[in-house]
């Protein structure tokens, strides 16, 4: 319907789910590493708390990715469309299953262990989760690097890998960043610790996009001037300019606002930060989504109208969750 095929939806679900799980594992690992074995110091407890709070995001990603993959296993053989120059063909996707299935089993098993362990607020769990996130990240990285298998490690295969794993560092990391931003609304002390990592997360997102651009060098002859391509290039322009504002002047303002003596974000800045955050998450999700579908029959204006509609919905949802978090009791360590 409207050019959307079930298999393409499932491929999108697999890509987005594992990108989210991989990014949650990456940033969970980094936050938990910051406190590694440093005992009961307050700083350590805060980083522990943030690392464990990222776990639900990891589990959501594993859930979406695994269900989509299970769906792919049972449907993909029924579909047989010819791929354009740089889109994986159905036989190439099917050829990746023997590599992906054991990796998905490992990922689901890891997730089940993480859920079943008791006392998630304890020191032991906080130390264990560092190793857990490291392994989970490696598994997610491997899964996203094999969206298809050509049977030979050539330029095309390297493009598939780069075009796949960059999602962990881009769309996945942007979702984690936004989640942490909303979570930090509970207490100033959380903002201090979360905002401090904004420049690092932003740099990783920029490098992720660079990986994607570099991987496209392997298929330089594969570009086609379609409406979809023009729309995606527009969204890439938007996300670069918006991301520069968000990770530059806005992030600096946010970090200064939570320093000792800082006045907090004023109304106008708050609104601009919220809009920029929404544009960022919407743009990354849009290009990941559109990229998953080969034959969309929409005009440029229709693509753009859909983008603006999604932007408005995400802005409303984002504002609602922020409002909820601001009313949630801060964690115990945050009480002065």
């Amino acid at each position, binding site marked *: 319907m409207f050019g959307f095929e079930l298999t393409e939806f499932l491929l999108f679900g697999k890509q987005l789910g594992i990108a989210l799980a991989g990014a949650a594992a990456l940033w969970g690992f980094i936050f938990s590493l910051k406190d590694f074995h440093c005992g009961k110091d307050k700083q350590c407890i805060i980083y522990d708390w943030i690392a464990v709070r990222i776990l639900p995001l990891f589990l959501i990603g594993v859930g979406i990715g695994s269900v989509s993959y299970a769906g792919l296993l049972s449907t993909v053989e029924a579909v047989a469309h010819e791929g354009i120059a740089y889109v994986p063909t159905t036989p190439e996707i099917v050829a990746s299953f023997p590599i992906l299935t054991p990796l998905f089993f490992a990922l689901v098993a890891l997730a089940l262990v993480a859920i079943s362990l008791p006392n998630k607020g304890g020191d032991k769990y906080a130390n264990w989760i560092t190793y857990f996130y490291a392994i989970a990240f490696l598994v997610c990285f491997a899964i996203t690097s094999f969206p298809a298998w050509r049977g030979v490690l050539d330029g095309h295969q390297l493009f598939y890998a780069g075009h796949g794993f960059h999602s962990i560092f881009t769309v996945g990391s942007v979702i984690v960043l936004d989640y942490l931003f909303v979570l930090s609304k509970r207490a100033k002390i959380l903002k201090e610790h979360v905002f401090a990592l904004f420049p690092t997360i932003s*740099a990783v997102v*920029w*490098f992720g*996009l*660079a990986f994607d*651009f*570099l991987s*496209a060098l392997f298929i330089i002859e594969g*570009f086609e*001037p379609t409406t979809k*391509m*023009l729309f995606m*290039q*527009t969204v*890439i*322009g*938007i*996300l*670069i*300019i918006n*991301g*520069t*504002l968000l990770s*530059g*002047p*806005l992030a*600096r*303002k946010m970090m200064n606002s939570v320093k000792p003596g800082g006045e907090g974000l004023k109304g*106008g*800045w708050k609104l*601009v930060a919220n809009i920029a955050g929404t544009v960022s998450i919407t743009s990354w999700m849009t290009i990941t989504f559109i990229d998953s579908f080969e034959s969309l029959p929409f005009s440029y204006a229709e693509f753009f109208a859909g983008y603006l509609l999604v932007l408005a919905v995400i802005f409303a949802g984002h504002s609602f969750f922020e409002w909820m978090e601001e009313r949630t009791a801060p964690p115990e360590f945050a009480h002065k």
Partner: protein
Amino acid sequence: MTEILNFTLFEKILIASGLLFFANVIWIASGGGFELLYVAKGIYLLGIIILATKA
């Protein structure tokens, strides 16, 4: 609010790259080739090299 326009060199390069993506869309839509796309990506990668050397 004017602080929002205080950009570092890296950020200025990225904004130039983003604007070139828009120019590329107009160029291709009016029958041009992919030259501006390569320039936009090249400038972006230059920005990333600057970011990497400063890190």
